[in-house]
């Protein structure tokens, strides 16, 4: 079970569907094993392992993703047997299960009404409050979701997960400066997470690359280069950081050559040209190496297939534009 717990962590944190599917297929065996041990009355009650409950929660999520509703139901029942149906987190998970198995729009609306009822009784039930945001989002009412999330963050301004979700929501509405603000708040809460740094860099890059080219976009891009660099500094082999760095530096190099004709640079605090060129070359080389070494290892390939394919695509594109 401990082993599967660790596996479960990696499953949740990767967006890889294969791993999720494989993990959820183990559900019947894990569940029956649990059942067998609890059926024996004479067995000595061993100290329970907190990791076991985490693994059970992951299993629930994996089963729901893989469409195995029956096993998901069993997981939920075991958890609520242990912690009682009135536990906040269990309420949230039950809501999640209901949402996932909802077939019609009216079912979702029922869930929403249920959440509102729970929140009227206990306004600080955070798991349910978060589910409410998620359900509003999946009912494609993003503005309601944003206002619900802002209300949540008023009360709990130290929740990095919620800030990230808010950033994502704002970004989906095209409000990139708000999104950047939110991701910066999340970064203030956990300042050493390289994935958030890379994410902030991506948001800046997207915001800048979709706008018109002038000095302020250049400043945004150079900020995003700094954030990507920071994420590499925190995690040396972070593929996503190098991807962003390569992309942003090439973009800025291209644009600067356009801009520097009209105005002298160094009026704004961007990187100097030689540094940019060096960074760009370094990022591309490192990206090359990472793609090559990871593609040859089967495990790594399984784990981050989509990222590697994207990185390969970027390398090809950069080569083409250089040629």
């Amino acid at each position, binding site marked *: 079970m401990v082993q599967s717990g660790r596996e479960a962590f990696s499953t949740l944190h990767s967006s890889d569907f294969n791993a999720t599917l494989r993990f959820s297929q183990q559900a019947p065996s894990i569940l029956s094993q649990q059942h067998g041990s609890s059926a024996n009355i004479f067995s000595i009650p061993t100290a329970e392992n907190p990791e076991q409950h985490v693994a059970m929660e992951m299993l629930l999520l994996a089963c729901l993703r893989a469409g195995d509703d029956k096993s998901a139901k069993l997981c939920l029942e075991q958890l609520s047997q242990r912690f009682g149906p009135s536990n906040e987190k269990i309420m949230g998970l039950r809501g999640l299960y209901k949402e996932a198995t909802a077939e019609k729009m009216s079912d979702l609306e029922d869930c929403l009404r249920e959440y509102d009822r729970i929140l009227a009784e206990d306004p600080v039930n955070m798991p349910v409050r978060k589910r409410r945001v998620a359900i509003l989002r999946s009912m494609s009412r993003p503005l309601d979701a944003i206002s619900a999330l802002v209300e949540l963050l008023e009360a709990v*301004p130290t929740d990095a997960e919620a800030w990230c979700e808010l950033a994502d929501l704002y970004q989906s509405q095209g409000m990139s400066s708000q999104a950047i603000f939110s991701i910066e708040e999340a970064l203030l809460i956990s300042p050493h997470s390289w994935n958030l740094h890379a994410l902030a860099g991506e948001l800046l890059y997207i915001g800048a690359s979709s706008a018109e080219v002038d000095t302020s976009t250049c400043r945004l891009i150079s900020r995003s280069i700094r954030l990507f660099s920071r994420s590499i500094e925190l995690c040396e082999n972070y593929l996503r950081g190098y991807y962003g760095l390569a992309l942003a530096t090439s973009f800025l190099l291209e644009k600067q050559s356009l801009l520097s004709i009209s105005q002298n640079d160094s009026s704004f605090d961007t990187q100097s040209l030689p540094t940019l060129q060096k960074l760009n070359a370094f990022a591309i080389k490192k990206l090359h190496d990472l793609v090559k070494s990871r593609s040859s290892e089967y495990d790594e390939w399984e784990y981050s297939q989509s990222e590697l394919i994207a990185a390969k695509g970027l390398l090809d594109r950069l080569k083409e534009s250089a040629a």
Partner: protein
Amino acid sequence: MAVQGLEQTILRDPALFYWIMFPITVVMILTGILRHYATVLMHSPPKPASTLAESRERLSLIRGVNLRNHACAVLDKESFEQRKSYMVAAYQSGAFLKDPANRGQPPANPMTDPAGMEAMMGMMKGNMMMMIPQTLIMSWINAFFSGFVILKLPFPLTIRFKSMLQSGVLTRDLDVRWVSSLSWYFLNLFGLQSVFGFILGSDNAASQMAQQMGAMNPAAGVNPFQPGQDPDKLYRSEAENLEVMEHFCILDGIEERILHNIASKEGF
């Protein structure tokens, strides 16, 4: 003083071992275990915030501390100044307070405030849990076993240890190596920590339950305020801390750092 170089010999009944030393040790271990489980049983988790405003009042302070501690790692000057002025203004105007109307009034007396009372009761319970068994056992030992010399340490000690090892035996000439029963109790009282760690799993058993509930319920946040403390005062001091902060950013010059530290290692 005892004559130097001459070994003091005392004939001890071996029954002293079975009827005094052994029972004291066993009783001490058992009370330790009992106390541990009683503490687990009586432990009440800190009460989570009951309204959104209360939760905001608690966590906004942590937000300010986070900003102060982590701003240099994340923010550039512009966004830092923006956040700083927002937080300072909100702290000073009391925008985060649970009920801004009560601002400036003296805090509720912890003796009459039910929340403060509860926290004090918790502390009381913990202290009582230590005091009562110790008093009982010590009086028990005093009544039944005082005055016995029950064991001889295998190594010599200086005279200073006499009061520690021979309490209850009032003989000036006795060698320091002899240990009295009352002292054996004290030695057990302070020396059994590692035995409890072995039996109960290094203090984890007491906190495990709380940990699990915490894992299942992350919103039950910490309360930075002690009972009877005025949040408004803490906010003001935090605002001052923020105001005097000098901004620097570790993102400055990161490109050179990357090129110097990482790229050179790759042989680039």
